């Protein structure tokens, strides 16, 4: 027990410990079982049937196109959110006010609306444009819509915290043009926010299902779409091995986000709180 806690009441302590252990088991045992099943020759007969890499190989054979497509899509989404988001974040931070608030509010709205509804709206508006509907660009638009707020807010939070306006004034007095100031003062100072935002965008894009399921075509299947497919039609070992591949892709990204999440609040919270300074665990707004 840490010294700051009240003198331990044994029963309360035991109950709390029990609940915590049950929660940990609830969250982690299925994930562990899934990982194990991906390596087990026959899950229903158990580990005694032996360990194998065959299922993973089978997944790579059957679904490697979805894995490649998801990675390409995530990188494309990242590129677009960087181009749209970083300059806009600077523009919104340098003139805080009602207008900036309104823009931020509208851009952030897609996070508060279920992906299913967003996808339906996109299909109704653009489903008739066949070329666009069938191309990977259609899914890209959905992913950008959904991830852009995370990039925007992440960069805005950092820019508001480092007081980029003062730095810019310094550069301006030395004769730097606005564009030079953006690339040589603003972007380097926003590096932390850009990196954190980029991690979020890539993680969310790789895991996105609700929008993607509605927007995908047989030629534009992402990893989560393939997962849903395998859960419905493949044997449990293959579904597990496929989930394992997904974990291998997503867990390093999550760990990186956690490392950022732990250090960022300390840095930003010390500053005067601003509207943009809503701080990290933005990921909490993600929709499963």
């Amino acid at each position: 027990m840490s010294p700051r806690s009240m003198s331990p009441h044994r029963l309360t302590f035991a109950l709390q410990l029990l609940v915590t252990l049950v929660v940990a088991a609830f969250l982690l045992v299925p994930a562990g079982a899934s990982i194990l099943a991906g390596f087990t020759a026959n899950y229903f007969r158990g580990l005694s049937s032996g360990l194998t890499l065959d299922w993973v190989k089978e997944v790579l054979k059957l679904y490697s196109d979805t894995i490649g497509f998801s990675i390409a899509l995530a990188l494309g989404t990242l590129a677009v959110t960087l181009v749209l988001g970083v300059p806009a974040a600077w523009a919104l931070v340098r003139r805080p006010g009602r207008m900036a608030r309104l823009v931020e509010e509208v851009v952030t709205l897609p996070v508060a609306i279920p992906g299913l509804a967003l996808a339906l709206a996109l299909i109704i508006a653009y489903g008739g444009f066949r070329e666009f509907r069938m191309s990977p660009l259609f899914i890209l638009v959905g992913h950008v819509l959904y991830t852009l707020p995370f990039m925007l807010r992440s960069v805005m939070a950092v820019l508001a915290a480092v007081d980029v306006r003062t730095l810019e004034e310094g550069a301006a007095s030395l004769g730097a043009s606005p564009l030079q100031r953006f690339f040589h003062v603003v972007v380097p100072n926003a590096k932390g926010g850009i990196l954190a935002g980029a991690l979020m965008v890539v993680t969310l894009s790789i895991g996105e299902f609700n929008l993607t399921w509605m927007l995908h075509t047989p030629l534009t299947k992402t990893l989560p779409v393939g997962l849903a497919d395998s859960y419905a039609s493949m044997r449990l070992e293959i579904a597990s091995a496929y989930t394992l591949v997904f974990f291998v892709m997503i867990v390093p990204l999550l760990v990186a986000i956690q490392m950022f999440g732990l250090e960022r609040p300390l840095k930003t919270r010390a500053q005067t709180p601003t509207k943009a300074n809503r701080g990290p665990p933005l990921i909490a707004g993600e929709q499963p």
Partner: protein
Amino acid sequence: MTSADRLARLFLLPLFLFVAAFFVLPLVRLVAVAGGGPNGAMEYLAILTNPRHLQTLISTLLLSAAVTFATLAIGTVVALFLARNSFPGRALLVSLLTLPLAFPGVVVGFMIILLAGRQGLLGNATQALGLGKWVFAYSMGGLFAGYVYFSLPRVLVTLMAAVDKLDPNLEEAARSLGASRLHVMRDVTLPGIAPALIASGAIAFATAVGAFGTAFTLATRIDVLAMTIYTEFTLNANFATASALSLALGLITWGVLALTRSLSGSGVAAAG
């Protein structure tokens, strides 16, 4: 206007165009299509006037409320425990517990199938214990478990941060003044983390109402709003109803989040 102002406008333009073309316009179309069906503008109220949809709405809201309540109750116990006890491996446990944060709904559905499906761990364990086989993955119970699964990590992150910021002196003062453990909990600790409870509760509720992937993986026969919209749109090609229900769904989730944010101030919206 300075040259920097001009650059700022130029920088905002692509964002404006993107949001106008791919968010505002589609939403306007959604509203138009919802009201352009055979029932006209009455379709907007289909969620309330059609008994089947109303029933679905009620069960979705009840399920989400139950998930929110359960997640907050469990989350508070675990957050208090983890924030106030130090033991070896604590940091690892905390980060493991928050990992499922970004599992998509389909993967969460699969986790529940492994846990409580036909060949699930729970069923095998209860069978071995002679209690019969527990299989509830493909029902409302499975959906409940799935939604708790993806809400818990989010709630935990927010609550642990809130508990960390509580001033332990307040609780000690209350104790030294003779308050019982239960009273301290009720009068000091819970009010202290109330803003975090409200904020993370709102997020848990909104995500549960709008969640689709988990229901999609577990069963197509469970009637929750997201599944109804999906079937109306893809199987019945009933675009007006699907659009009207989507609007209702979006209004509910956005409304819950906006309401809690305005109630508790922008500070707590940090979690959203």
